């Protein structure tokens, strides 16, 4: 049985490993990979598809 607080599973787009995400992730949300720390965008939910999020370099000015 899965409840709505059980984590959902997805494939890490960089390493291909299976990773756990919170149950309440939404399409478009940015979330960091527990394996690589990379910021991932949630592309779809059923199944969960993730893509590397475009890098925001706001704090890294020159």
């Amino acid at each position, binding site marked *: 049985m899965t409840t709505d607080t059980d984590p959902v599973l997805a494939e890490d787009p960089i390493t291909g490993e299976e990773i756990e*995400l*919170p149950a*309440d*992730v939404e399409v478009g*949300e940015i*979330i*960091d990979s*527990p394996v690589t*720390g990379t910021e991932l965008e949630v592309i779809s939910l059923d199944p969960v598809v993730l893509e590397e999020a475009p890098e925001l370099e706001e704090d890294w000015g020159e």
Partner: protein
Amino acid sequence: MSADDAADAATSDASYTASVVGGTGFTGGELLRILAGHPNFEVVQATSRSADNMTVGRSHPNLRGLDLRFSDPDDLASVDVLFSATPHGVSMEQVDEYFEAADTVVDLSADFRLPEAALYDEWYDGHASPEYLERAEYALPELNRENLPGADLIAGGGCNATATILGLKPLVDEGVLDSETGEVVVDVKVGSSEGGAGGGAASSHPERSGVVRPYAPTGHRHEAEIEAYLGLSVSFTVHAVDMVRGASATCHVFPDDPVSKADLWTAYRGAYADEPFMRIVSGGGGVYRYPEPKSVAGTNHGEVGFELDPGNRRVVVFSAIDNMTKGSAGQAVHGANVALGLPETAGLEFEGLHPVGSP
């Protein structure tokens, strides 16, 4: 497990679930660090509005090993102990919700520190839940150990107030100082973490580096706390200096009657010899002869020391803490340990580093 099971908890196998509200913040992160290593707590929730669903390690790189993601403060998990590390004004609004979610609430803000609503009118912008003020206990065991066991609303002290109270309390207890004594000047130097994670222009590295900057010349709100708990009116001034962690209070006091160095040793040894976290550092040799924030950085220790200035009939008292531990998160956990009947030093064993730069 609820707070009234505290008596059983002295065994090391007591286990409490905990949540941290304000988990992206500086003291919230410090709570998470301490609780993660605490044998009697299991953190089940850390909240953030701005980093909802992100890993805790993204905000706090030292917690990358923690398998936990921030969640929304509107969905509080049911826990034994809720720690709140939000800006002043939040927990006084949320305290009912906090108690719906938890048996014991430990608040790190100023919201439950002062004993009376009138003081919030005088020093802050009033209080939204004054009915809780009597129930709250000040977290600092060196000041309030006897009232903490079984307490279910614990109010962490202010960092600068804590440094000052620890420095002066032995003199008050010994009657060297009382409300009739003359001027008590407290000149404080603090690190940048006191400003929290959300600092503005004055907290940017180029502007904040290398400073000695009067940031609260007069009228600092911690005066209220000191007066409430020591019964002394103090002349308080706070300076920002170039460190991240640390609060150092230099207290210049002028006792009515002459005291000797032996008197001072007696007073401070009497107050602190049995305290697990207090150290008297007062003269001696080597480089570290008096209290210094960097000697206690990362630890829950407080260092106090003193020197006589007979020509001016003055006693100078130095007190140094880490504002993130003894001055907030460590004090909160220490207070919770006492409240729950856990070993006092549980989770707070780190002894600090040497050498260490500007921790």
